[in-house]
């Protein structure tokens, strides 16, 4: 019954908008209104000249960055989406912390090179909530380089409470790499295998062999009474099939880097509690009872269980027991895999009227050559946005 409304609405005849979530390692791309992305592709470009692959967001010079983006987005359109970019709407799901320079560059690439008809930047933390239908939640995005915690209240990101730390996939991979190097010294026979470890192989080891252990075992190990290690694994490296041994210690403890409180006493779980602490007191309970974990790193086996354990432990520890009087932490399960939850949020947003009313149009962009910041224009001052589009 509800269906009839929007089928007769203006959007059913319009072409589906393209929804893209650029990530440091993987980019998710698909169409608005669909249940999942068409492709999850590495954010890499293969150079025509020398055949090397380069990360899209690694460029130093603006010119170089522009060319990389053009090539990468061209591939997205013609290899994965298979539609013409021209005169089609685009929704970009971006992190709140996305540098303005990158956003300006993206706008230029989309409008000037690909001639898209409109562009809408949506903040990943806020749109992720539309996969749940709730307005208030503590959104934790564990991505490739950073973990970003932002509380969202009634659909508005509480920006002064945000927390971001480089405690994410790259940190875990660095830890695996260090632990394996340590082993290499004690095991010179397998040196050939260790020498060939590339970034991709470390990532593969992380995904296929490692898991997040429990708090209890970590604490015991810290007290000097370690539990027996899980079984080790023989792993074959590279074309030469050199065998290396991944010990149970690596498998179990690589992810612990995210939970070891470093010199500043910061871990993923303290970030979450700090974010809650910075929020007004009446928001704390709803935030603690609406936690949404997104981003690929949160898909690691045992990650959610560990975060819950950590939160329950920390909140009764002297560090937080004074500040926070929270008892329960509840977690949401979105109807999507964690690594594309933010994308799905963008796809849901992109299927509504919002995409036609709040987008930055090509004409507006070409006039000013500027991207309005979402904080100032789109969310906070609705009236100004209306003036612009009428």
């Amino acid at each position: 019954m509800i269906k009839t409304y929007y089928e007769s609405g203006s959007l059913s005849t319009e072409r589906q908008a393209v929804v893209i979530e650029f990530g440091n390692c993987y980019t998710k791309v698909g169409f608005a209104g669909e249940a999942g992305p068409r492709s999850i592709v590495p954010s890499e470009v293969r150079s025509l000249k020398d055949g090397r692959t380069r990360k899209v967001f690694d460029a130093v010079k603006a010119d170089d960055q522009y060319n990389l983006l053009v090539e990468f987005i061209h591939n997205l359109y013609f290899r994965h989406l298979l539609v013409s970019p021209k005169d089609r709407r685009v929704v970009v799901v971006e992190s709140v912390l996305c540098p303005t320079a990158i956003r300006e560059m993206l706008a230029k690439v989309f409008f000037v090179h690909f001639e898209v008809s409109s562009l809408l930047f949506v903040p990943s933390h806020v749109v992720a909530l539309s996969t749940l239908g709730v307005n208030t939640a503590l959104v934790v995005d564990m991505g490739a380089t950073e973990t970003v915690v932002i509380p969202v209240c009634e659909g508005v990101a509480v920006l002064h409470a945000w927390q971001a730390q480089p405690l994410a996939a790259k940190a875990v991979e660095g830890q695996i790499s260090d632990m394996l190097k340590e082993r290499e010294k004690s095991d010179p026979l397998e040196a050939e295998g260790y020498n060939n470890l590339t970034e991709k192989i470390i990532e593969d080891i992380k995904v296929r062999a490692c898991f997040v252990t429990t708090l209890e075992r970590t604490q015991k190990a810290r007290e000097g009474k370690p539990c027996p290690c899980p079984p080790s694994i023989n792993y074959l490296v590279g074309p030469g099939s050199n065998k290396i041994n991944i010990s149970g210690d690596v498998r179990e403890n690589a992810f612990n880097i995210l939970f070891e409180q470093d010199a500043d006493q910061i871990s993923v779980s303290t970030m979450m509690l700090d974010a809650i602490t910075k929020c007004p007191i009446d928001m704390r309970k709803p935030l603690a009872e609406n936690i949404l974990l997104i981003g690929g790193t949160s898909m690691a086996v045992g990650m959610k269980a560990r975060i819950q354990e950590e939160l329950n432990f920390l909140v009764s520890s002297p560090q937080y027991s004074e500040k926070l009087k929270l008892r329960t932490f509840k977690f949401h399960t979105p109807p999507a895999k964690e690594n594309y939850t933010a994308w799905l949020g963008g796809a849901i947003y992109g299927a509504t009227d919002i995409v036609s009313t709040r987008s930055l149009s090509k004409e507006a962009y070409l006039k000013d050559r500027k991207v309005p910041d979402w904080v100032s224009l789109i969310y906070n001052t609705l009236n100004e946005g209306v003036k612009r589009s009428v």
Partner: protein
Amino acid sequence: MAYLVRNDIVQYACTCGQLRPISFLYFCRHCLKLRCGYCVCHEVESHYCSNCLEILPSAEARLKKNRHVPKHIRKCQACFDCPNCLNTLAVRGTTVSVRDPEDPSKVNSQKKYYHACFFCRWTTRDVGLPDQAVQTVSANGWAQKNTSNLQRITVLLEHAKLLGMLERHEREQREKKFTTRFRRNFSHLPGLTAAHVRKRAGLPPELPAPSTIKVNLAEFQPAVAKDTVQELPSDIFTEELDISRVTTLAQRFAQPETQPENIEDLLPMYKHLSTKQSQRCRECEHNVSKPELNPSSIKFKIQQAAYFHVPEVRFVTIEPPIGGKPSEVVILFINPSQHPTTLSFITLQEAEDEMKQYHSEGSADTSVQQGEAPPSLSSLTKPVTVVEEQKPIDISLTGEVLLPAPDIEIILPPKDDAAEYDDSGETQQFHDDPKIVIHRRANKASLRFTVVPKTDFIGENCVIGFAFRYTYVNRISSPAISTSEQKPQKVQLCTRVFMNCGKILEGTQ
């Protein structure tokens, strides 16, 4: 033909500033400018399956016709990819003996089909999918299993759309106070496509009353958070892990919605389609390349490649470049067109100045035209054309070339396919300066240049650059000119060329 593949020997500067070999360039016959893959507008012409070569003309049309299958659009319905190694799966037939249900003593043989990957030997039997009775297997056998998510997402989508409508409703109410319905003019509305504007200006789709929206909104159930999460399986600390049974990230991401973690859960994937693309000049919106629709055809309907129009430049001989010493370079010029052309040489600086002048004139022209455009071509229907700004050419010159005086003109006869087999010798006289033109044959001429490599770039490649003017006969009569001038127009064009003469050697003294 190696020079066509080696893209660093002779490079032409495209109008946009990119350097490409001539085989990578287009020539727009309407703008009379070089275009490259970077500065043309790419469009998807048709979709086809690279395995069965079936054309799916327009995915968009299919979407409209049958809105229940948008899920798998842009995927071939008959072909599958291997979920293990991502290559194409092949259909294999076997005969299976089945016991007759009526007479258990009789055994019937039956033809059965399954999918197998010839690359990594994965088969649908590996994951326990039943064999199929027909050869053209549809995916019924292994329908996607995440229907519960799909239902929830549909509900969420409806919810979000209702919210969007409510917001629009409120805004329209606000607007009503200021503008009456009849005086509303949408043409200046940015952010709306032409179709959208027409729809709104003509017959605005009636929004349901806000009360009904609110009723429907109230039906929505937001997600509820739980205090239990997926536990870490306790046997992970004791069980041996067989890493070959865990999928890799590439395998997971190939099936983004399910992202299976065990190889037992891998299902064959619909084959991703390929596209045929056309290229369009951004300035005049004419196609410079348009393929034939048929996926097995490699021909083009339109192909304005630069090597059909622009004189081609090749090296004939190069004296080894020595730093600071002039060396002789013989360069061949080929006229690919059906009309004679006249070459003359200028420096890069002169060519740039000329282009700047032309550019400023050109932009003045278009502004006049826009003013006079008929109302049907108003800015509403004809979107603003956006052109990438020109970029400076990204190459450093490490050698200087001494060009013939700009008033020396070299005439190249037209290309004549029959002349290739004609041994009767040249009959035409060109009165060439024998110091410059060393050799001529049909539409080709070899010219002698002197190159002085710079001394401070020893060990690097000696890159020289120059520009040449050539006459081009424009046989396309644009509608505006056709009334006054029926004859083909003769125009003079200019192209910049960069050539790599090889490593600069050190002097021997």
